[in-house]
């Protein structure tokens, strides 16, 4: 550790730790922009993780695994959509239910996969480029989902700010009654937004079980879904700030692992608290400017939509 050789591997681990947070936060960001608060991110992540792992291991094909993670996330998010959009259930309660159900169902499906090894995702390797010093491992040495996470930041930002569909989605999130009276299909748009949230949480879960720690363990998301929810608030519903937030949190996670690694004389458990304490701190900091928070939050967030027919 005398020279700077540790810097590149450290940055690479920060990228790995940040990616699941970023993927899930981007999904939830779009969902919330449409006016829907889905607290089930943790549950959707776990369903994504076990779907991806089960399919990845049984087929031996990581691409099918990632696909399964995404599909699993979408399927479970549909449960939330039906309950909140068709049955007009309270979004907070339904989100909690989704998380509890996701924890249980993933543990049930995953029961026979505990202890099964998985090779992990292949890293991109471009002859020549990947061998460049510094730039090679930093830019060309990652797996597919990490690149996807960056592409999605740009895509989501473009969609929300530059596309017509994104404008409509934001309108639905700001005032669903007005959007309805202009003739926009509020429920259909929210279905899409919730499914996109499920897809991204599913991918985040797939990254956890296929790449970050290539195995299945009960409850393996360990609160990352909740941290992603906090990140959306931290980001004041802006994709590029979600990227920043995810990397700050990833950094805190890795800082804590490294402190343990070089033998800082603090019990490991106390260091492991850091990401959770950092989340609370961030929530406090962001709440200090409550007027700004209020104007950036989608105005219809969490409200039930029932058109007076």
């Amino acid at each position, binding site marked *: 550790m005398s020279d700077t050789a540790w810097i590149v591997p450290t940055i690479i681990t920060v990228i790995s730790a940040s990616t699941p947070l970023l993927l899930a936060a981007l999904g939830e960001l779009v969902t919330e922009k449409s006016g829907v608060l889905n607290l089930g991110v943790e549950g959707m992540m776990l369903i994504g993780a076990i779907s991806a792992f089960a399919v990845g291991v049984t087929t031996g094909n990581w691409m099918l695994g990632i696909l399964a993670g995404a599909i699993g996330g979408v399927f479970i998010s549909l449960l939330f959509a039906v309950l909140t959009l068709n049955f007009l259930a309270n979004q907070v309660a339904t989100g909690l*239910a989704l998380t509890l159900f996701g924890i*249980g*169902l993933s543990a049930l499906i995953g029961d026979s996969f505990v202890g099964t090894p998985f090779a992990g995702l292949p890293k991109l390797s471009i002859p020549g480029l990947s061998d460049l010093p510094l730039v090679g491992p930093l830019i060309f040495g990652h797996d597919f989902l990490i690149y996807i996470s960056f592409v999605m930041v740009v895509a989501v930002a473009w969609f929300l700010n530059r596309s017509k569909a994104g404008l409509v989605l934001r309108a639905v999130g700001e005032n669903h009654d007005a959007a309805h009276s202009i003739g926009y299909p509020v429920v259909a748009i929210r279905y899409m937004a919730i499914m996109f949230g499920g897809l991204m949480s599913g991918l985040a879960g797939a990254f956890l079980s296929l790449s970050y720690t290539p195995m299945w363990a009960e409850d393996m998301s360990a609160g990352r879904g909740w941290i992603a929810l906090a990140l959306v608030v931290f980001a004041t519903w802006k994709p590029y700030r979600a990227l920043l937030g995810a990397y700050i949190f990833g950094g805190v996670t890795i800082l804590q692992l490294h402190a343990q690694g070089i033998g800082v004389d603090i019990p490991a458990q106390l260091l*492991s608290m850091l990401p959770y304490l950092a989340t*609370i701190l961030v929530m*406090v900091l962001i*709440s200090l400017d409550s007027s700004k928070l209020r104007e950036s939050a989608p105005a219809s967030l969490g409200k039930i939509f029932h058109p007076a027919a």
Partner: protein
Amino acid sequence: MIRLEARGGASPIWIYATPFLAAGLTVVAGGILFALLGHPPIEGLYQFFIAPISSLYGLSELFLKATPIVLCAVGLALGFRANIWNIGAEGQLTLGAMLGGGMALAFYDVDTPFLLPLMALAGIAGGMAWASIPAWLKVRFNVNEILVSLMLTYVAVLLLSALVHGPWKDPDGYNFPESRLFHDAALLPVVWDSTRMHVGVLLTLAAVVAAWVILSRTLIGFQVKVVGLAPMAAGYAGFSRKKIIWFVLLVSGGLAGLAGMFEVAGPIGQLTPVISPGYGFTAIIVAFLGRLHPVGILFAGLLVALSYLGGEFVQIEMGMPEAVTGVFQGMLLFFLLASDVLIRYRLRLRSPLEGHSR
């Protein structure tokens, strides 16, 4: 095409009927789940719902299991009524177990009848202290209590783990991450011979009655309900929202802390890294299933406690994963939330004539 038509108000019948409807649907879906897992459904349902309570000992275990869940749920329901979403009961329970159990270790081998009350007070204080963090942050900075209370759950579990892996580890325990076994004066007395049912079960019943009285007969209980149902009206009436936030979070934290102390001074009998298999989260389901009413919560708590025992039974008798419990609990809450639509809306078949009214 089915259409939802708003009722004038909440339907008094469906408020009480939907928990039963949800329970019934869960049984049906559970049978399907067993069939999907390749087990005979009737046999599975029997092992899950009937076999665990077909003996007196089984019943005593049911009451024992329901105790921490009901205690947590009664407190959470108070908050949910006021629209305060404490979902960190699991962490508050853990802190209560830690401080309550810590007293047992601090006064190890001291034989005094004052020890148990001291442990109970320490447990309550621990839960309250943990809940006071989201309360203070909410009142002072308007920080979302859902995320704070949840994050603190992870912190609490890690804190307890650090203690039982370190300073509180049993010196004669072969390096297992567990505290000493509590001595007799630190264990709750058993109230039903040859079972594990302890005095905490009766105290929980008392807490249910007390919560009922508070909600229906006291000013603060009335204020809690008004703040939740009509925040504007509560403001005009001069009710302090901050006071309500502190009240519901301290009460729910204290009850969860007491539940944690009951667990360590009862069935567990020592401090271990993990005190609760998610009772604090299950309590959320129980609070809703019990219609946020203390007496409803008592019965809902018994039903959900049965899902824990049932999970153990299907594991032992039929070799199914114990995770079946979590799936049943999740389904129960989903069905409840779905059928609750009937409280405020009636289903109407859309006639062809109405179809183009817009």
